[in-house]
């Protein structure tokens, strides 16, 4: 009984800590995680995303992130790619337009991906990328006790206003062995504002 009392009095049995291990970083900074090193190399806004055959238009604006990931230990897909605004609202990458919705990671070999979000105006200023192995999905249930990179995209008020008005178009790209082409061109007439 004494032992039982000792356990119930001194071990916080009601408190189970399942929080993720959050590693913060900025654009251009390599963030080291258990399963990968991740860097956001570029942040752009787009009025259109083009492939050989399609041009996608955003309902809000496309926020385009160039992300480099170098896997550690084994090849894995990184599926947690949520954009989070300062109010804590999550946004997921769009499947339209031909950008990556998961990064195919390779151990020791850089994977270059473009991640594109169709977001409203209020998602831009102060937005962060939450990068993880598993999707955020059900309130982060799959990211419990795992590493998550929280990368500040450095979008301030003036930058957000400029991004919202953009008329640039970018070539969409999924996960590649070489960095994406980030040369902007004017958005096709059909989708420009």
């Amino acid at each position, binding site marked *: 009984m004494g032992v039982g009392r000792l356990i119930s009095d001194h071990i916080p049995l009601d408190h189970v800590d399942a929080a993720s291990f959050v590693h913060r970083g900025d654009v251009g900074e390599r963030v080291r995680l258990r399963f990968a090193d991740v860097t956001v190399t570029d942040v752009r806004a787009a009025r259109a995303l083009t492939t050989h055959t399609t041009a996608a238009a955003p309902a809000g604006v496309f926020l385009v992130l160039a992300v480099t990931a170098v896997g550690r230990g*084994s*090849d894995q897909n990184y599926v947690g790619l949520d954009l989070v605004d300062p109010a804590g609202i999550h946004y997921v990458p769009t499947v339209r337009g031909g950008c990556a919705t998961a990064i*195919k990671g*390779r*151990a*020791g*070999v850089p994977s270059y991906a473009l991640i594109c979000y169709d977001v409203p105006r209020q998602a831009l200023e102060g937005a962060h990328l939450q990068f993880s192995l598993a999707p955020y999905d059900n309130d982060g249930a799959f990211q419990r006790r795992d590493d998550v990179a929280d990368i500040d995209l450095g979008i301030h008020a003036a930058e957000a206003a400029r991004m919202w008005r953009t008329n640039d178009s970018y070539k969409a790209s999924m996960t590649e*062995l070489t960095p994406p082409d980030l040369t902007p061109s004017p958005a096709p007439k059909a989708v420009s504002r």
Partner: protein
Amino acid sequence: MSGWWRVNRWWLVVLPIALVAMLAASSYRLKTMWWDSGYHHEIASAGVGRWAHVDESYATFTQRIHHRYRVRADGLSTTDSIPQDSGDLPVPAGVTAYLVHLSFEAATDQDMAYCEVMLVGSDGTVYGGNVDDQINQSDLCLPVAEPDPETGITPTDVPRGRTWTVDPIVLAPSSARIRAVRVTYGKPRYVTLAVDPAASS
């Protein structure tokens, strides 16, 4: 027997049984969350240039799997470009694209579809195995079909003999020292085939 022991004698018998039952009841987590979710069961292995023999049978949720084949690593070579439908993909600097030369022998009715081939580095890092990848390889342990010269369509089902060879590509950093090839038909089972580290670097 003193009073306390006598009063509690049945509970003392029940206690270890209850403990075992409790552990058993939650042990499925160990199997599902750990054992089945990683490469934990080496079913066969072979030294450099030797055959590994696989003869096993196990049940999944939906079916019973029988695997009976032998496989041998005939070494690694490297390539400067990765063939793709849209033209060859150059291998970037700092990266080595290995051609993994494998020989197989199995009865012609043995299902050999959907394996994965990986390389194991001297530090334990495993390269490859994420088959739905940038270089668009699909079924690594079956002979690759040639596209039909008239239609240009690559047949998906190629008849094979009892023995055949494959050369899937696995990417690794050029700094890696490769010590083995891993062939798997799904976690947690795998076959380890040693390769000569000197030959890979």
